[in-house]
């Protein structure tokens, strides 16, 4: 009930912001009859209307997100992975990230460690030698 109302309102706000930034689009003097603004306006308008409909006529179900902490941690781990994959090479970030994600799914230390190391080495061999991707195994600083 409540979650759909909040969601609907967020959508309305997003739609209004979208329309607002659509007004900022520069128009070229060569523009066709429709121009670059109309379609985004229409999309924003439909979005706003649908957001209102959801906010006013929400589904019964109340959505609960359990274990927000774990999800936040997973997100941070993945973000960290995204930024370290390039500078630190494939092996170390992959082992750490997949180990942590594995631990989050099933909280036992040894299997998680094994999963991390196994996936890291296994996937590296797969990508590098079977698929021939240009990956770096170790931190670039060590190689140069």
């Amino acid at each position, binding site marked *: 009930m409540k979650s759909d109302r909040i969601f609907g309102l967020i959508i309305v706000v997003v739609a209004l912001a979208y329309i607002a930034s659509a007004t900022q689009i520069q128009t070229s003097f060569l523009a066709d009859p429709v121009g670059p603004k109309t379609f985004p306006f229409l999309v924003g308008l439909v979005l706003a209307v649908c957001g209102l409909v959801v906010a006013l006529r929400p589904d019964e179900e109340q959505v609960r997100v359990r274990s927000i902490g774990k999800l936040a941690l997973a997100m941070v781990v993945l973000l960290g992975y995204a930024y370290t994959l390039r500078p630190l090479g494939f092996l170390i970030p992959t082992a750490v990230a997949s180990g942590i994600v594995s631990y989050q*799914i099933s909280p036992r230390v040894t299997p998680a460690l094994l999963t991390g190391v196994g996936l890291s080495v296994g996937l590296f061999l797969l990508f590098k030698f079977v698929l021939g991707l240009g990956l770096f195994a170790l931190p670039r600083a060590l190689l140069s």
Partner: protein
Amino acid sequence: METLALLAQGFAVALTPKILMLAVAGCIIGTVVGALPGLGPTNGVAILIPLSFSFGLNATEALILMTSVYYGAMYGGRISSILLNIPGDEPALMTTLDGYPMAKAGRASDALVLSGVASFVGALLATIGLIILAPVLARIAFLFGPAEYFALYLLAFATLGGMASNNQAKAAIAACLGLGIAMIGLDNSTGLPRFTYGNLHLMDGIDFLVAIVGLFAVTEVFVFIESHGRDSAIGVKLEKLRIPVRDIMRSAMTMLRSSVVGFIAGVLPGAGASLGSFLAYVTEKGIVRDNSQFGSGDPRGVAAPEAGNNAAAGGALVPMLTLGVPGSGTTAVLLALLVTLNITPGPLLFQERPEVVWGLIAALLIANFVLLILNVPMVKLFVLLLSVPPRVLLPGVTMIAFVGIFSLSGSSFDLVLMIAFGVLGFFLRKLDVPTVPIILGILLGGEMEDSLRRAMVISSGDWRFLFSSGISTGLWIAAVVGFIAPMFVRNLLKKPQAITD
């Protein structure tokens, strides 16, 4: 006869060692992807697309590989439905209704063989349907101008939102989000940036592969972590495989009828395989004389949805290839593959690149027989896969997704964007907002806007032009009906989720 000549040409393309190897590899990967719970055809294909580029495959090869994966996933989905009562992918949901009771009654291998045969019948008939229908539709598609295309895109969103979701407003929100995202980047006709906020990464627009992998693969990881990973690895006992001739004979008519129903559902733009298996099951339950066993292990209840979803998978390729409008989530991903390979699907594809179309069709016919062998005599190998625990599977899938996207552009920005889509997908999933319309919106948004603008250029700004031809008016009416009608029949036709419990 012309069709047969073209098909022969297609076989000439497909019967080379490399293509055959790719088709077989695709079938194996697809069956694996389908069998593993939580890894469906859409995200399976999405994860593999970036990797297939790094192979350096040409267009025909990449398309054949991915379509084999797609067909394979449709076969494989039934395995965990029958053995674990967990659908391996969404279209296999209906198979749990009678498949799992059959397995509990000690007839697991009978159910697997029967459903394998049903899958084969459905997929084969659908591929034949594709051969017959696609050239015809491609000819009709020549009559389509920008106004008709605009109406057709609208129809795709309307049927997808109307039939494939529980709440039209939410489906429309998803479609608008996708369309809105598609506007980011340089405007096609004026060349000026829109919604980039001065960010250079956004100038090219948002790559739909990043969105697809984020919304499907990364979201799956978050969902799993939240639900504390129901460990699916359960010891399953399979008795000796034998062919249940009686069941197959008894459900022969069922398979034929369900294939037809599934194929039609697949051809409708936006409807897809889940609807195909659902309609096939419901129709069959209504038609057969003695339906008291349905829901408690009737072999026909196993055959119907499997024939239906495989037929729908083939049917969904028809609008994707001839009109460039995907009929389901996975064909949307396949469309993304085509676009990335610089192939524009549509009527011209059949004239200018016949080797791609007919090579693909021939490869699908071959893939079907390969899949029959993989899924009937060799099904035990895939059953073993179900013992891979989620704690290994999901991190593995995540890392493959990351490396795939990373290998596309080598930029951390795309990876971060992918995570953002994963988070978005997680919340949308919790709120029961479908994510497939987002993908469709991102994919079709540019084309949809272009066709609108071209139509307005032709008519110099007269909006009535959009409804001027018979075809476009028909499509508009179909779109409105497709969106609104399900609201009224919803009480009659309960969604599959409601039937399960």
